[in-house]
């Protein structure tokens, strides 16, 4: 997965030619691509943490870690598509509050899990369509459109509730989405539902992005919209698709969040949008469009999640999480800038 875009990245680099020897090719990938560097850093971090804390590598902790990153990862999948397609969505943070509150109210009113889920996804589709309509129809920069949507949705979430919508329906299956496990799998253990959902979303969209026509269109539209338009690709269609996917996936993560918290809170997701975008860019995507892979995004989200997990396990004040995340982004961007210069890009 993602191999195509990695190969394109290496075009022109002297090391790119040595792929005849598989080991040298691997070394090139590890040291010369954003994904490779992230993987190396992630592995090093895992080794250090498992030495320092006996709990780190335990089955329980690994699944806790994976559950924790699931919300960011699900939204980041949509955001990767959107950023590759040269647009951005800042409204995903407020979506966590807005969709959460609306979905919880629907659940309370209907006591029907599917009704709640349907309303959440519908809200995601509508927000995605509005974002796309304003960006493409009125030709306003998506940064501004979705920034306005960020304030509007936050305001609407506040209008719906003063603080939080509590769970008044007590559906058992609902809580399971946030904190439950699917059946025990021998040799692997009890896998939490959020992890399963994340894996399905990731695999589905990774295949879509690398193995289907629409996936190639996303790269084409992001890389050069004019050329894509001239060769018959509907830029509108592709970008609208990306906006809607981002809206829906943000809604899915909001649904998992309310299931985990057992309430829809109007202050959920403050700053979430910047964390998601930070992870996607850390994964090697560029806001200039046409670049980025879901594997890179996954590695970046894993790296940030592992760090946060490590900080907790080592008993360090959790206030450090934010500072360390910021430093990691800085270091990763620094390494990327150096790598680009070494490879002779830019």
């Amino acid at each position, binding site marked *: 997965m993602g191999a195509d875009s990695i190969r394109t990245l290496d075009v022109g680099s002297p090391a790119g030619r040595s792929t005849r020897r598989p080991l040298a090719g691997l070394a090139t990938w590890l040291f010369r691509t954003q994904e490779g560097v992230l993987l190396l850093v992630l592995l090093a971090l895992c080794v250090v943490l498992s030495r320092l804390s006996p709990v780190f590598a335990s089955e329980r902790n690994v699944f806790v870690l994976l559950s924790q990153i699931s919300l960011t990862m699900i939204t980041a999948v949509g955001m990767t598509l959107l950023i590759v397609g040269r647009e951005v969505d800042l409204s995903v943070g407020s979506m966590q509050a807005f969709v959460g509150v609306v979905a919880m109210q629907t659940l309370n009113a209907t006591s029907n899990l599917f009704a709640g889920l349907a309303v959440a996804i519908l809200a995601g589709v509508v927000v995605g369509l509005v974002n796309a309509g304003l960006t493409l129809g009125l030709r306003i920069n998506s940064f501004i459109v979705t920034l*306005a949507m960020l304030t509007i949705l936050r305001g*609407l979430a506040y209008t719906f509730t003063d603080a939080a919508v509590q769970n008044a329906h007590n559906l058992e299956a609902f809580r399971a989405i946030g904190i439950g496990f699917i059946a025990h799998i021998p040799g692997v253990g009890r896998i939490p539902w959020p992890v399963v959902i994340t894996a399905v979303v990731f695999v589905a969209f990774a295949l879509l992005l690398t193995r289907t026509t629409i996936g190639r269109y996303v790269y084409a539209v992001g890389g050069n919209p004019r050329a894509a338009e001239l060769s018959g690709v509907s830029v509108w269609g592709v970008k609208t698709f990306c906006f809607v996917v981002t809206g829906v996936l943000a809604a899915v993560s909001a649904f998992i969040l309310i299931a985990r918290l057992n309430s829809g809170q109007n202050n959920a997701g403050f700053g979430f949008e910047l964390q998601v975008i*930070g992870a996607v860019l850390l994964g090697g995507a560029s806001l200039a469009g046409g670049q980025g892979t879901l594997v890179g995004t996954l590695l970046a989200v894993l790296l940030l999640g592992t760090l946060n997990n490590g900080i907790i396990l080592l008993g360090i004040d959790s206030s450090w999480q934010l500072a360390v*995340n910021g430093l990691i982004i*800085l270091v990763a961007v620094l390494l990327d800038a150096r790598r680009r210069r070494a490879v002779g890009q830019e």
Partner: protein
Amino acid sequence: MAAIHPDRSAAAPSAGGGGGIRRRLLPAVRHEEIALLGLFLLVAAFFAVAVPSARSGGTYLDLLRDAAPNLIAAIGVTLLLLAGEFDLSVGSMLAFTGVVTVSTFNATDSMWLGIVAGLLTGPLIGAINGYLVTVQGMNSLMTTLGMLFALRGLVYVWTNQTPVVDENGFSVFTGFYRGEIARIPLPGIIALVLIALAWLFATRTEFGRNIYAIGGNRTAARVSGIRVQRNTFLLFVLSGTMAAIAGVLVASQTGTGYFDAGVQGFELIVIASIVLGGVSLSGGEGNLLSAMLGVLILGMVAKGLRLMGAHTTQQLVVTGIVMLLAVFLHGVRQRMLVESRRRNRA
């Protein structure tokens, strides 16, 4: 380079009727400031009609006080945006500077030492941002996003997420915020003086005029002998300094260093106001005074809604809608401008 870019393929709409109304609107179309001033007056007139208490002159003086931190921070961010670079770290700077200032008060029992320490954080952080972007070649959006998290995190670690209160209760310090000269609030005067200086700098010095060249076409600027790296670095230092001044002002409001100052998207609101003022996110287009009008328009909307007794929720929704409307009108204006130029040439 600027990472987010408007739709460059935006073509002028087909020439319509071009009647008298259009010709009468032309001054507003040609001059951004006139269009924005009109918009500001429209907003002010609306609130004057809707809320009796908005009719007194005191309201506008209060507006100057409320908007001062945003205005001051926006000066630096605008100049950077014109040069094609982002600074997202200003929101966290607000908290960082405030905490440094008040902590130094408490540690040294000296007000001036505290203020100097607080103000010095600006050029320091600005220089780090500038070094990473210009010397290391890092993307400014990502760099300052990392700085946003890193600084906020440091503030959390340092303060343990509790506000730092001035133990000496320096009344001179809170006087900076509350004081007024000839009924004009001191923060407003500071903001106006800084705007005037920045405007002189941007329009009357060679460095200032070069900003547009850098933002418009970096390579061309470099080839024509402009020291792009040095100038960009200095603009980052300037942006940090302005953010620090804003941070000291916010702290002087109650003599407290708030760990969460600016956490609800200060940087995004500042950028939105600037873009509302017609500055392009891709650099090289726009001007400082229009950007300041953009800040005042959003400030007036917020103030008017508060006077109307609107809940924060409605404030957020209306702010978002005004933002969209203003940026949409800006786009329409630009297209009309292109059209009228084309007609003049024909």
